[in-house]
Structure formats: C-alpha cells, structure tokens
C-alpha cells in the first residue's frame, strides 16, 4: 500500500506545526471530500481549523481539485488557503 503525502501551506502549516505528513489512506477514502472528512476525524487541530469556515483549497498531484475529484493512495495532496502571490 503506497503512502499518501499531505502538504500544508501558509496559515495551515503554522497552525498545525508541520509542513507535511505521510498517511495510509483507508480504501473508502476515494474523493477530496472524503479525504477532508477523514483528516478532520483523525486530527483535532485540523478539525478545529477546517471548522472555522475559512476557504481551504486542495490540490491533488499539483493540480487544483474540487470536492468530488478522486484521490488515490500514492497521490500528492496539498491543503492551503486562497493564493496571494504576485
């Protein structure tokens, strides 16, 4: 079973106190929505953060992803706030 890498940026990184982690996805986690629910259930700091109602964007394999987009073991997942570069 390949591990799945989760990356955090900006205030998520600061609040969680980590920039990345490797997880083993349960087989029932097959979408971005399911992934977020699963992360929320296993980590109270992330749960608190997601419950604040701030917009969080997700990228799967370095592409912006929507809630119903698929995730699979081995994917590179990133969670971050709306971008503010430029």
């Amino acid at each position, binding site marked *: 079973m390949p591990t799945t890498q989760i990356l955090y940026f*900006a205030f998520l990184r600061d609040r969680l106190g980590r920039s990345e982690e490797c997880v083993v996805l349960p087989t029932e986690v097959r979408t971005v929505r399911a992934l977020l629910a699963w992360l929320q259930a296993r980590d109270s700091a992330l749960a608190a953060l997601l419950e604040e109602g701030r917009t969080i964007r997700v990228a799967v394999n*370095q592409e912006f992803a929507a809630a119903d987009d698929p995730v699979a073991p081995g994917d590179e997942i990133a969670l971050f706030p709306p*971008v503010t*570069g430029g």
Partner: protein
Amino acid sequence: MATVRVQEAPFDLGAEMAALACGGSVGGIGCFVGVVRGDPGTGGRALRALTLQHYSGMTERAIGAIAAEAERRFGLLGCTVLHRVGTLGIGEGIVLVLAAAPHRGDALAATGFLIDWLKTRAPFWKRQEFEDGSSEWVEAREADDAAAQRWV
C-alpha cells in the same frame, strides 16, 4: 518558449528584456512588476517586510502552463515570468511578467492576462511582517478573482 523561474534573488530586468527582444520579429514587450508596498491597507501598522512561501513543483508547473496558454492566445514570440520567494523589503519587486509580440496590443494584453492569472492561480502566499513585531498572512482579495474572470 516561456521562461519561468521562482527565485530568491532580485530580478535583472535589463537582461530579461534583452533576452526577449532578440530574434528580429519582436515589435513590443509588455511588462509588469509587482512591488512590495509599505502601506498595504493594514489598519495603520507600518509594514517592515513581506515573506513569500510557495508550493515548489506545483508553482513552476502551473505558471509554465499559463505562460504556454498566453503564448498561444496572444501569438507571443516569448514570455518570461519570474516570482520571488523569501523575505522582501518595501519597494522590492515580487513578480516580473514580460510578454513579447510583433505588436503592442498583444504584448500588453498578454501582460495583463498573465498577472491577473498569477494573482489567483499560482500557489504563493504572502506573510506581512510589521514594524511593531506582529505578522499575519495576507487574505486573498475578491478583486483579484474578478480580474482573473475577465479572461475566462
């Protein structure tokens, strides 16, 4: 072919411009430089510096894709997008966009397209550090989303 770089070093604007101007078919080069403002509407607190974080890998890939799209859409002869990361002082350049075309209309339109897109789709995040020692992440602006919608 687009040039895309994420770098800590300041831009060498003259060198980047000269690299695009050669070839004999370029008639105009549009350019935009984003600059660190000292008064970014932060309730009176004076800014000391800005720190930029990015998503290495996704950033270069995403900018490369939009640069290729700009080249196709505006018939560019070349374009350059450089974005700085790390800590920048007031008045320093953050982002440099250059677009070269046979005529000025396409060069300037492509410049606007690239910077509007970058502001909403390139994974960079700014953290403001104030003179009083406080700091905070910059919130995304709705005006940026509206600007990017012009090109959809």
